[in-house]
């Protein structure tokens, strides 16, 4: 069924592939171009931050000045001129967190156009039937047929609104922008910020620590199952700006949360920088399920424009029996540099990484995961599906390691790559390090193209070439798609079809 939808969807597509490339006309306040201690102070002041936060940022900035941009990834781009970027941009109408009815209607409209329903009632259960298409379905971003989703909407450098806050507060769940958390929950932020990804972790993470603008903060209290999906939607709008999102999610003992993020940006000729840091912490018996659909502007067919996406995502299974599961669908960005990882510190903790990475045109993807087994009886699972088309380059890079004391560590890794056309590249670079004899690691990787037999079979049944490719690719990524929240699956299948537009023939 779902596959047929994809096929229908592919049929409808016109030449304009990237659907989210419009720009919102809204007056913004910009920091002066460039990066210096003054700019760091400017950002901190704009956010009305306490002194300790400013000091933390400045320490990161000073550290960053001593670091060099890493060059080990298989990505190639001109040197970024950090003095030619705005490190802060915010719609003028937005100052501080607001309630829904205070948000600038232009912004609400923008999110509606992106398919992001910022109206709480739109999402109330029973408003529309499960199978009935919503007015929002067209946009290819999440729309939940049933159940509620709380959304934090981040526009350039600021969070413009967070929905369902009150209802979540009743359950004890804190869901707000990180800027707000710094002020409202300093004890939690101080305790956990930088505890998974230290300030000095890597070039981009350190840069982020100095200039991070906004992002989401989530705290799930002990024994609480978060009553709804949480979601953050990131939008870069302003020209020549960098977005430096910072997200921190803490699942206290015995809690559970499922979190989803989406991202888009206007089509521009210049490249834009997105350097995010996401930190997850699970305490004893807690679980975080983190899903991403990354659809930043990928640039045009000749490689002009597009987002540079340099992201550090890491989860720390700090407590015993805890679990962190990453699911990512990467279809956008000119360059993706991203390795959502798990530190399996607690005994019996579990890490998962499910990934679909699609590259087309001139896109360059270097993505994968690290599973660091430290505790006893820890297990991890990696399923990665890479699809390269056009003139793109798609690399899986991963590390599985079991330390001396990680007795009975278990890992299973399956990395499959699919090539469409002979102009692209697909690479697999796994590192496997077993320092413990009781560790059991199994790694398997394959690279192939869509078989002629499958294509012939599908075409003989009446599908055209592009439909057949979409159908087969959706089958190829099935294991990962199934990890996504239910209503999101169909949308993602459509997105896959769209991303591979023009890859055959």
């Amino acid at each position, binding site marked *: 069924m779902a596959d047929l939808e994809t096929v229908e969807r592919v049929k409808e597509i016109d030449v304009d592939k990237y659907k989210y490339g419009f720009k919102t006309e809204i007056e913004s306040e910009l920091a002066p171009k460039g990066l210096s201690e003054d700019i760091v102070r400017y950002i901190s002041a704009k956010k009305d931050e306490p002194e300790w936060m400013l000091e933390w940022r400045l320490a990161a900035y000073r550290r960053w000045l001593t670091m060099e941009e890493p060059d080990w990834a298989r990505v190639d781009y001109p040197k970024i001129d950090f003095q030619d970027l705005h490190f802060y941009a915010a719609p003028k109408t937005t100052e501080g967190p607001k309630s829904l009815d205070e948000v600038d209607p232009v912004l609400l409209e923008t999110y509606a156009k992106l398919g992001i329903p910022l109206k709480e009632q739109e999402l109330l259960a029973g408003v529309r039937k499960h199978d009935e298409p919503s007015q929002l379905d067209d946009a290819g971003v999440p729309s939940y047929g049933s159940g509620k989703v709380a959304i934090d909407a981040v526009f350039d450098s600021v969070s413009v609104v967070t929905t369902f806050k009150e209802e979540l507060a009743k359950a004890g769940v804190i869901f707000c922008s990180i800027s707000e958390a710094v002020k409202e929950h300093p004890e939690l932020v101080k305790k956990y910020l930088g505890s998974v990804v230290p300030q000095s972790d890597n070039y981009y993470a350190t840069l982020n620590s100095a200039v991070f603008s906004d992002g989401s903060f989530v705290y799930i209290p002990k024994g609480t199952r978060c009553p709804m999906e949480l979601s953050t939607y990131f939008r870069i709008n302003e020209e020549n700006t960098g977005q430096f999102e910072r997200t921190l999610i803490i699942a206290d003992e015995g809690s559970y949360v499922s979190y989803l993020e989406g991202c888009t940006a206007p089509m521009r000729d210049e490249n834009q920088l997105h350097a995010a840091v996401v930190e997850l912490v699970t305490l004893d018996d807690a679980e975080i399920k983190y899903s991403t659909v990354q659809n930043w502007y990928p640039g045009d067919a000749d490689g002009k424009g597009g987002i540079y996406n340099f992201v550090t995502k890491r989860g720390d299974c700090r407590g015993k029996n805890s679990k962190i599961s990453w699911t990512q669908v990467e279809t956008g960005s000119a360059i993706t540099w991203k390795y959502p990882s798990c530190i399996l510190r607690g005994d019996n903790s579990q890490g998962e990484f499910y990934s679909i990475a699609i590259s087309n045109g001139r896109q360059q993807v270097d993505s994968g995961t690290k599973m660091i087994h430290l505790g006893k009886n820890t297990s991890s699972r990696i399923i990665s599906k890479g699809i390269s088309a056009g003139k793109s380059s798609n690399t899986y890079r991963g590390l599985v390691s079991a330390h001396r004391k990680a007795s009975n560590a278990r890992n299973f890794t399956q990395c499959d790559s699919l090539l469409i056309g*002979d102009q692209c590249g697909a690479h*697999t670079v*796994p*590192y496997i*390090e*077993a320092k413990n*004899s009781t560790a059991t690691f199994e*790694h398997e990787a394959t*690279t192939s*193209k869509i078989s002629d037999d499958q294509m012939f079979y599908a075409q003989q049944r009446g599908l055209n070439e592009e439909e057949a490719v979409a159908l087969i690719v959706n089958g190829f990524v099935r294991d990962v798609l199934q990890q996504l929240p239910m209503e999101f699956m169909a949308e993602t299948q459509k997105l896959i079809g769209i991303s591979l537009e023009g890859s055959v023939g």
Partner: protein
Amino acid sequence: MTASPNRTPAEEAFVSGFAAAEAALPSAEWLKRKQALAAFNELGLPHRRIEAWKYTDLRNLVDGAYPAQTDATLVDVEQVQELAARSIFAGIDRATAVFVDGRFRSELSALPEESAIEVLSLSDNLADAPKWLSENLGSVVPQADDAVAALNLAYMSDGAAIYVSGKCEQPLELVFVHSSGEPRTVSQRVLIVVDDEASCEIYETHVSPANGRYVSNVVTEVVLGDKATFDHVKTQNDGSEAVHLANLHAKLGAEAKFNSFSATSGARVSRQQAFVEYAGEHTDANISGVYLLADKQHGDSTLVIDHAVPNCTSREMFKLVLNDHARGVFQGKVTVRPHAQKTDGKQMAQALLLAPDAEFDSKPELEIFADDVVCGHGATAGELDEDLLFYLRARGIPKDQAMALLIAAFVGEAVEEVSSEAVRDALNEMATSWLTTHKTGALC
């Protein structure tokens, strides 16, 4: 040459010792020793910040000065013969070429008598080298970015140059014997040129008394003509204090068959690199090996398979048995270049960890630029399977015997890749005897 303040004693000795050594080494105008040393001076010994040497840091592992061996040492013939007799190929009818401490020894060798194969000592023939030698030596090995290969060229004292013009009946064994003595580096080189449609079977044995402290640096170049067949089996049983650095570079013609197997149980540190380059279509390459390591041995196998042309296959199968504090490293990179369509490449590396402190690091890598390919790799690490062990024991086989049987079977899967049955038997026997002598820790 400017001395770098960061040089290790080993690097320092290699650079400063050259001038004196050069005069004593055989020379030829076309042999660019000086350039090779300059390249080494530029690069230094490979270390862990160089991606390809991440797991084998020679700056650390080569612990002190190992001056180049230039003169022929006095040889205790009986000891050499006793060592050579340890060869697993001893029971097989074959010709031999014996090298002791970096020098060819004709009186200890039994060179082939058939006309299909010609074997020359490099040191005796460099000055007046036949065209096939001077044109091919160094043609397959890139010096500029490989410090170990550069060092080999700068210091190589001897080796074998082999020209195969027809189908050889008798295998040839190259025996490299190292005596004990002062720490030193022995650099040797093997060139094997196999004509179109010719074939040969080459064995390689590295052996030494237990306490020899030396670096053995061997570069082997293989050039296969169209439809040539090459079978190669190497056993590395260098002394427990030795460092073994091997570089195998092969360039394969169309419809050629290349089959290379190595069994590694010797040396304190070993790194064995194999580079395979396909020059013609419909060619098959098979590289396999077994590592049997104990104590604090460090064994590294690094492969680079370069599919530059369409319609070729590559197979790699490596099995590592790691006991005590041994560390096994496997890196295997398979590249499929643009237009190398219909490439079929498969790779498997499996490690059996017999003791809690054994370590296995693996980096299988695929780099693919053509779409119509079937490529894959697998890697596993773990202990012996408890269910298998139970099944064997439930049939009455005692635990240690059951374990030995399972380990032998594990190793045997790689040995299967060797074409000669007699050699397979000899290899399996060698593995079994290793298991018997290393029945420590988990095996007790």
